[in-house]
């Protein structure tokens, strides 16, 4: 198709050159967005740029707790909905970016699915999500279960999120 364009009119050449200029310009604008701090850049260009650009030196895992209608708190086993091991000690839900919106969306998902699968009285009325972090060590991957309480850091991401807000 483009070999035909190659032989064809001045107009086609001008249009493709204009496209090339626009393409390169959008890449440059996107690429300078981070250093100059004005945005992250266009989606299709910037996905690889921030890969491995920083590492906090900790592993982390989200823990989800639910309050049953009777008032008792339980730990929700996320393996019932998330089976894919995305990274070390990290199922797919743990890959969620820790922002209030995304964590709330996860809480709504847990409420919806848990309550759909449970009988009355065993449903959740609220959800709390914590992030548990533990330090990396050289030469070895440590599972959370191997880490002592002293080394764990708890960060509440979402507290007492009401399940009433979770649309069915």
């Amino acid at each position, binding site marked *: *198709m*483009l*070999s035909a*364009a*190659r032989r064809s009119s001045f107009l086609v*050449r001008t249009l*493709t*050159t204009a496209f*090339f200029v626009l*393409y*390169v310009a959008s*890449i440059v604008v*996107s*690429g300078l967005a*981070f*250093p100059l701090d004005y945005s992250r850049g266009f*989606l*299709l*260009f*910037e*996905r*690889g*740029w*921030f*890969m*491995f*650009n*920083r*590492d*906090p*030196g900790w*592993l982390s895992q989200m823990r989800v707790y639910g309050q049953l209608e009777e008032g008792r708190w339980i730990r929700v086993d996320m393996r019932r*909905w*998330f*089976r*894919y091991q*995305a*990274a*070390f*000690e*990290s199922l*797919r*839900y743990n*890959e*969620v970016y820790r922002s209030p919106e*995304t964590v709330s*969306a*996860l809480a709504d*998902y847990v409420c919806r699915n848990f309550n759909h699968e449970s009988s009355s009285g065993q449903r959740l009325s609220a959800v709390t999500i914590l992030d548990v972090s533990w330090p*990396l*060590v*050289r*030469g*070895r*991957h440590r599972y959370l279960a191997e880490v002592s309480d002293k080394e764990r850091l708890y960060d509440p991401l979402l507290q007492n999120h009401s399940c009433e807000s979770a649309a069915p």
Partner: protein
Amino acid sequence: MNKKLHPLEQWLYEEVPVDALCLYRIGLGMLIVVECLLRLPHTVEFFSNQGFHLGPLAGLAPAPLAAMTLSFALIFFAMMVMAGYLTRLALAITLGLWSYFFLVDMINEKAAHSIVMVMLGFLLFSDCDARFSVDDWLRRRRQLKRKNGRTSIFVQRLMQVYFLQGYFFSGLVKVMNPDWISGVVLQRIFMGRWATPLAVKLSGVLGSTAFHLLSLCVIIYETILSPLLWVRSVRAAVIIAGICFHLTTSLTLHVGSLSWHFILALVFLFPDPRTVRRVLEKISGQDWTLTNMNHIVQFNHALAKSRRKDPSKNH
């Protein structure tokens, strides 16, 4: 004909053998098929309305059975891309399905996923079906006119720019982080969640000086060496260095198909397409220019024969 063009125009539009682009199409199709097969067991969790999604099309996630059907369809059309059968249609459908899944599930999204979208989009406007394809085989079998074995390098340049910007700006982001330059981040990455057992072992063996040097190598390759892929005299060395870099990455980090996408580009998109063709001719021990000419002679012969049978076709 190329000699008459302005150097910049020649760089952007010169006619080159299409073989490299066609081989890239096969490789890309293969990577998509492998990736789709690997995620097939997780289709319901990744893409159906039973899974958790945050993408812009999360609300349009299909039912589990539909998600499964679409996954199989994606594999089928990616295989068609690989084989080069109804290539343009297969490219368009593969791009559509891949983009839809991409926009449903962005939790487990990888950098390689956007590479696939952009590359499929570019291939759609190329002559990547002209050789090494069922389409070409059918054209020859039916004694139809084959597509030109030469094409404008324009699409290949767009693809090269995409990969180069991937290198350069990720290098730039690293340069801006002092912990990257000192090697601290790389050492942590080798201990972290994406590290393979080999990387974790290396993190215990290598000292901070080694990580500092490795970090500098990565930054230098990404920001300084990669643009040299456009410099003929050093291109081969940069390609070899790049392949080593990506093989090391795939051995030490769980980055999915990303390394293979870059290796594929380094092998087929960056070398001069004329060199790729010469290598192919050497491997096959055949002069393809001669083969193509023979085909044209056969085609013209068949055309003349049909005209003799039916004189009305002469007009």
